[in-house]
């Protein structure tokens, strides 16, 4: 650019800069929001009437009412809200960031079992609060929260960053509903019982979790020896197994 042109530009810009200093004031002068969030920008030192222009209504919608701009974040991106009065224009920059998410959104744990919650897109400092520290313990490191079941019951974890609040319900199951040892021995065989007695024998026709190996085995043998097996579906069912299979099933169900 040649010297004269540069000068000309300066001359042109100077009055604008001068006006800018006198234009209305906005507070805050920029916004960081998450989709769905609402905020207000206050406009002061206004000369004459105000007009508002929005560079990207898809990202944020803005409504001027009196000396306030009501901003609603719609989608991730940025938008400039320009407020003009008699003396000039001032711009509010709106940045819409993805909201912080926590995964999974709920947890079920056994007593003494640990699980992790993973936080994505946090803004600022993460804070975790726990509605019942006698039921679960939490520890935050970076963007993961380790949750440990302490006693049967429920607790709600509230996870906050500077923009978003997430609540994660945690259910701690009693030790009779877990911890599941994860043994595979006899597991597939015993899973034949789950359609009628619940997953891991947790309940349905009869709850099997919590019974001992000897109790279960004896009951199965009693059913198997029932000559009237066509009047009781349990007795009918058990006819199909070998003794070795019944022992394996009883062993598994007593300690799944």
């Amino acid at each position, binding site marked *: 650019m040649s010297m004269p042109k540069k000068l000309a530009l300066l001359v042109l810009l100077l009055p604008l800069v001068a006006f800018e200093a006198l234009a209305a004031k906005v507070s805050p002068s920029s916004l960081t929001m998450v989709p769905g969030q609402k905020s207000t920008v206050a406009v002061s030192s206004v000369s004459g009437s105000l007009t508002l222009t929005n560079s990207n209504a898809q990202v944020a919608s803005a409504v001027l009412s009196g000396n306030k701009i009501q901003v609603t974040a719609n989608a991730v991106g940025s938008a400039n809200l320009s407020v003009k009065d008699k003396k000039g224009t001032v711009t509010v920059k709106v940045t819409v960031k993805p909201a912080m998410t926590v995964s*999974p*959104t*709920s*947890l*079920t*744990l*056994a007593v003494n*079992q*640990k*699980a*992790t919650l993973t936080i994505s897109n946090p803004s600022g400092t993460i804070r975790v609060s726990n509605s019942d520290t006698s039921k679960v313990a939490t520890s935050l490191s970076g963007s993961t929260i380790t949750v440990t079941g302490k006693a049967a019951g429920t607790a709600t974890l509230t996870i906050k960053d500077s923009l978003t609040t997430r609540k994660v319900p945690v*259910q701690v*199951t009693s030790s009779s*509903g*877990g911890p*599941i040892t*994860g043994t*595979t021995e006899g*597991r*597939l*065989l015993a*899973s*034949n019982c*789950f*359609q*009628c*007695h*619940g*997953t*891991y024998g*947790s*309940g*349905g*026709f*009869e*709850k099997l979790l919590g019974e001992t190996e000897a109790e279960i085995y004896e*009951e199965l043998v*009693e059913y198997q020896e029932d000559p009237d*097996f*066509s*009047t*009781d*579906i349990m007795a*009918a*069912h058990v*006819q*199909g*197994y*070998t003794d070795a*299979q019944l022992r394996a099933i009883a062993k598994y169900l007593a300690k799944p």
Partner: protein
Amino acid sequence: MNRRQFLEALSLSSLGFMALPSLVRADEEDIASALFPVPTYTGISGTIVIVGGGMAGVTLAKYLRLWGGTGVKVTLIEKAPSYTSNIMSNKVLTGQMTLADLNYVYDTLKNHYGVQVVSGTVTGIDSGDQTVALAGGASYGYDRLVLAPGLEFDLLDGMEDAKEYDTDIPHAWQAGLQTQLLRDQLLELKSGARSGDVVITIPKAPYRCPPGPYERACVVADWQYQNNLSSQVIVLDANADILVERDNFTAAFNGAHGYTVDYRPGCKDLKIVDVMSRTVSYVDVDNKKQNVTAGVLNPIPPQRAPQWLADAKLYNPDAEERSVPVNVLSYESTRVPLVHVIGDASLTTQPKAGHIGNQQAKTCADAILRLLQNQPLDPAPVTNSACYTPITATTATWLSAVYQYDAKTGTMFIPSQHNGGGAISTSEPSTDNYKDMQVWFKTLMADTFT
């Protein structure tokens, strides 16, 4: 004391009867609250894609995570936003249940078990690239693919368009809007807006849920009787005889529903003569051609594994049993490696039913987890089928069968110690069985969807 000893003790005492209902099924409450965690580390990892969120597919997704842990990435592709249970759907016909009662959603699978649930329709597979293609162009890669898409329904001879099932002659063999249409048509019989008999046609076996059509005939007959309708239920069965629970259904057809059910076995060459007037023709056991005009026509069509499975060379569409041959130790296709098929779309010696689809899924889950770790398959898996069948609005029967693996033939069979190798069924419909049926249904669905 277990429940039986308790019952025996009760029957000896005289006053226990009133207390029974509340005590008997106390453990039912435990079903809903029992949610077990997905282990965070088991050392197993892999990417499994499942097509079809019905009885078999959902059970598989749950158990792959429950047994395999978070290292096993599971994606379930389902075309419908939620599932409508076929089981109990005959009770919608009688107004004892609604379709909403039979609705199951995928939330627990997503939120608790961490399964990625994708809404989409699979159109084909590329077994070389190990990908499945969805309508709209998306595709998903897999280490192992499991297909659980249920069945497709043939057009009956004389029909022009499958839409006729949706508008005029519902088969209602996949619960949904057709079930509601059939219910509405039955109500028109009651209001007098239409007249004539209810005609149910049964295809040659194998078809989905062997006792299902007979069950439907029974409950519809009972409903007609309860509502003082003079119409009959005419059953045109392509099979030579009642296939399952023969004694129970024969007794029901001749006894409780003797005046209402007209059971005609051995009907060949079924043809829809006219959709609008609901006229069918068939050739009877004496080789005579017969015409029947129905008030309500409910043709249950022959069924096959979906066509895109044949296109993927998983089965021969010209074979008599148009479903997918599998190795029942793993439910892997015998033709296409790394592709497994469970539920109604698979061809095994087990019935096409939801309870057994659930157990096939567990066998498949166990096998896939072993395969991912290069371990040998369980050499002796067991499966079981159980079915409660309503006979009237308050009574039901049941059937139970346990299947063992026969290494010689590579098939599942009912062992001889189990009633000489046959299924076992109750000798009489009862109200107790009817109550048990509700517990069974709730528990089976919880083991699948919760």
